[in-house]
């Protein structure tokens, strides 16, 4: 099969050219340091911009599901400047200090949450040659880094010295630790299907068909389990009992103000994006264009759309699915959440893993 379309928008030659140009005027160590600095700034800017887009989207989607209009005053007809205005406002707010609490841990907790989020964020495959952190065990690193976030939540709950926050934190901790199992098992299923843990290679292996089509029933089952568990992992409804406004004020971040609260809020939305991005990578072919076998003209047109547009488009589609779920289902109780994971989802994902092994051994995947 001719796969030259993969190289239309390859970013690697560009980056190599920049690197060698820098190396010709300065020592290599300094060049790498400067590149790292620039990439870091790019990650942070992208992170903030995406958060603004996602918050705006959430408000509009939520409004649509509740038969409202949503933000529509600030910045013209669609309320486009509402979220930037909110961002500016939260930046001016005071960061309060609590009495009788452990200040060091209290101030550290939001940074742990955001650290986990940014580490996983930088593993997403944006385009061919457009990955930021590239390692041959990429997807395993994503799982490992995302498990740091729960520590931030636990520390935030404990160091705020309030019963609401501690209940929220313990609930959230129990839930995230449980649902990590399902996520790990479904990711393992897809790793087995592609035969590699390298994120870019997982994407390239889907050049002749996305995993969700190649793995048919088994992959679709894994996809659904991944979406449910991913929703829980991002602490979003119907699994938002860590926050549970009606019972716990705001759960583990009740006592936070200003930008410290902003960090939790940012991380929540970006975790949603990361969950969707990993789902895109594993099941929907990452930055691979959409092909229909036989329609060569159609396929050629699809090939000319840059990979980054495919990736962002698919990811936002999954984000929409997750928002749909959030605003449609009522919240579960903690015992229901744990029952769902331990009695249904985890056995189901073990079964999916087994089925995938059988399919793979007998060549039933395409």
């Amino acid at each position, binding site marked *: 099969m001719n796969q030259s379309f993969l190289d239309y928008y390859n970013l690697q030659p560009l980056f190599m050219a920049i690197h060698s140009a820098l190396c010709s005027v300065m020592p290599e160590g*300094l060049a790498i340091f400067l590149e790292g600095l620039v990439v870091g700034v790019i990650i942070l800017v992208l992170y903030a911009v995406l958060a603004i887009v996602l918050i705006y989207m959430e408000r509009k989607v939520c409004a649509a599901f509740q038969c409202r209009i949503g933000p529509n005053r600030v910045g013209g007809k669609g309320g486009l400047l509402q979220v930037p205005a909110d961002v500016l406002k939260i930046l001016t707010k005071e960061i309060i200090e609590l009495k009788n609490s*452990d200040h060091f841990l209290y101030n550290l907790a939001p940074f742990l949450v955001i650290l986990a989020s940014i580490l996983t964020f930088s593993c997403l495959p944006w385009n061919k040659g457009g990955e930021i952190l590239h390692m041959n*065990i990429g997807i*395993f690193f994503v799982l490992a*880094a995302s*498990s740091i976030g*729960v*520590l931030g939540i636990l520390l935030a*709950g*404990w160091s705020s010295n309030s019963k609401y926050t501690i209940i929220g934190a313990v609930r959230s901790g129990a839930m995230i630790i449980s649902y990590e199992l399902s996520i790990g098992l479904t990711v393992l299923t897809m790793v087995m299907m592609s035969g590699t843990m390298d994120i870019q290679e997982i994407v390239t292996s889907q050049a002749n068909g996305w995993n969700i089509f190649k793995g048919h029933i088994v992959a679709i089952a894994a996809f659904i389990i991944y979406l449910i568990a991913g929703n829980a992992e991002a602490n979003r409804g119907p699994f938002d009992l860590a926050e549970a406004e009606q019972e716990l004020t705001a759960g583990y971040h009740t006592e936070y103000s200003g930008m410290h609260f902003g960090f939790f809020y940012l991380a929540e939305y970006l975790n949603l994006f990361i969950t969707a991005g990993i789902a895109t990578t594993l099941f929907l072919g990452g930055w691979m264009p959409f092909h229909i076998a036989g329609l060569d003209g159609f396929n050629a047109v699809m090939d000319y759309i840059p990979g980054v547009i495919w990736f962002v488009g698919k990811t936002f589609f999954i984000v929409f699915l997750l928002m749909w779920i959030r605003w449609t289902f009522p919240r579960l109780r903690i015992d229901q959440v744990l029952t769902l994971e331990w009695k249904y989802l985890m056995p189901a994902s073990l079964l999916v893993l087994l089925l995938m092994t059988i399919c793979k051994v007998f060549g039933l995947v395409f």
Partner: protein
Amino acid sequence: MGITLQEIVFYVVAAAIMVCSILSVTTGKILRAATYLLFVLFGTGAIYGILGYTFLGAVQLMVYAGGIVVLYVFSILLTQSDKNMKYKIGKAKLVSVLLTTLIGAALVLFLVFTNGFALNMIPQGEELPAREIGLDLIGTGKYQYVLPFEVVGVLLLACMIGGILIARKNKEEEEK
């Protein structure tokens, strides 16, 4: 250039590990000790990263930072043992602690300087692919590890059953 970027990063990480290890045993609050321990484990993961062995780095993050420390913090939260732990240390204890530290340090230094660094024994450049690790782990040939793998698996199963046995509610007691 006497010093490379890699060395600078190594010294920064090593210093952070040292400071955090000392802080984690000298701090008076148990949850802070767990947090400093977390930083030490991050640092160890970073050192694996500097060596170019990302698999072990990720395992370090996953098992220790994401697993063990979460377990510690969870049990600290559930047992509510947040009281200050600044104990008075007696003279005899202090002397014995210092002596143990000195002997330990001497032993480690002796081993390091007599055996030399392992730098030249590690193949440089390419990282060992995860596929090879997996195949070795379940292979039965020479230098392959299926027996330890299975033994550890059985051990974990036994631990899990034991945990469930301790944690589960007794049905007869509940009915009364």
